[in-house]
């Protein structure tokens, strides 16, 4: 589904990504973790072409992201993305947020798009808020709407860029529950997150990054039981000591 091969990216002399390679198969859930500045967010943004990269290749569903001839908009319309800061469109009601891309990008009819959006809104437990605006919802609610908005496009896979880091602690779980449910239904997911409980529960594989390189890429059992690199051991020791 997603193949990342020898991807490198640099800003001037600074290497953000160093020769990163991995694959995500259909239905797999991958958690990407690592210290801040390790390049995890950059890597996931390269997958749908929001960040350009200088060398290597990323293939999503058979299409090369780095190829200048690729219609990136079309590719992105099938790849759902959820952001750290939700990024709902503040000037539109929740219903419009859910419907607009379906109408303008996929060419669905307005009624059809609203129906679909409301069904997904119901699924994330927020049907009662359809008429509100993003600024009137809590962070956790906004993030659930953002997930529903991405799902409304019928994505072939979902990218999550630290979806819970901007949330109050008590709202983290409502978002993780939605993500867990999605994983259990067989959605292909690549999640940048520090939620190790979530990784333990639903991930198939864990990727650990440090200083722009993929240091570990292993099954979650192997990663949590016995991380091979010293850096990953330190990282886990620091975040799992509670």
């Amino acid at each position, binding site marked *: 589904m997603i193949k990342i091969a020898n991807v490198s990216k640099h800003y001037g002399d600074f290497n953000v990504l160093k020769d990163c390679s991995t694959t995500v198969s259909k239905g797999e859930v991958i958690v990407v973790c690592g210290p801040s500045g390790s390049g995890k967010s950059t890597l996931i943004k390269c997958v749908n072409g929001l960040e350009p990269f200088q060398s290597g290749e990323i293939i999503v569903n058979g299409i090369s992201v780095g190829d200048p001839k690729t219609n990136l908009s079309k590719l992105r319309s099938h790849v759902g*993305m959820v952001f*750290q800061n939700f990024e709902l469109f503040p000037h539109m009601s929740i219903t419009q947020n859910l419907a607009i891309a379906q109408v303008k990008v996929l060419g669905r009819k307005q009624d059809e798009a609203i129906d679909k959006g409301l069904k997904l809104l119901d699924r994330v437990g927020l049907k009662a808020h359809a008429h509100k605006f*993003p600024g009137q919802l809590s962070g956790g609610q906004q993030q659930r709407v953002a997930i529903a908005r991405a799902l409304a496009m019928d994505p072939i896979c979902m990218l999550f860029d630290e979806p819970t880091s901007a949330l109050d602690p008590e709202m983290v779980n409502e978002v993780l529950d939605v993500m867990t449910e999605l994983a259990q239904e067989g959605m292909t997911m690549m999640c940048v997150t520090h939620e190790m409980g979530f990784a333990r529960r639903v991930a198939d594989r864990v990727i650990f990054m440090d200083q722009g390189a993929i240091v570990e890429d292993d099954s979650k059992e192997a990663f949590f039981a016995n991380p091979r690199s010293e850096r990953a051991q330190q990282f886990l020791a620091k975040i799992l000591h509670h």
Partner: protein
Amino acid sequence: MGYQWNWGVFAQPSATGDDTYFGWMLAGFKMTIGLSLSAWVIALLLGALVGVLRTVPNRVLAGIATAYVELFRNIPLLVQLFIWYFVLPELLPASIGDVYKQSNPVLQQFLASMVCLGLFTSARVAEQVRSGINSLPRGQKNAGLALGFTLPQTYRFVMLPMAFRLVVPPLTSEFLNIFKNSAVCSTIGLLELAAQGRQLVDYTAQPYESFIAVTLAYILINVTVMTLMHKFEKRIAVPGYIGGK
């Protein structure tokens, strides 16, 4: 002070006989409004376009837009007006220049003033629009693109609706400025409000009355603009955000 106040001067027939002095003031008032509003339309349309271009990734387009802004922002309005009115018609090809120079002089003054004020203000509007776009959270653009919108669609549906809401207050200032700056156009003989005021002094020797009247007329215009823009700002406020309910 031996000044003879005479507010009745406005009711007196004017020296040319075809109107009262109040009629002169009214004509100037209408001219100021017509000139400022038509220049404002140019300023808004061009300013929005140039402001957007300053933020696009294409360096050539962004460079052209930057040059435009620097050109019109860095030359004094009065100099620009003289260039439009006195210099530019001479630089046109003779056939077009002659047609222009033989047209109605009031029309010439009005066109030069409208284009000059419009372009001058458009550079300022462009800067406001650009700052509005740049003050949006960076993630908004990514969110639009990630949903499959093209860059123009992302501007149209995601970024501009919020950016314009953010810049309504500074744009209100520019809107007020354009009425005040229009007084500069009296220097090329356009009989707008300030020019009529001065003309009234020449004919009636009642400077206090005439300039008080001019002042009140400008205040009337700008209080109206402020009230309308304030209502507009409330109407487009986004619920749950600054200025919203």
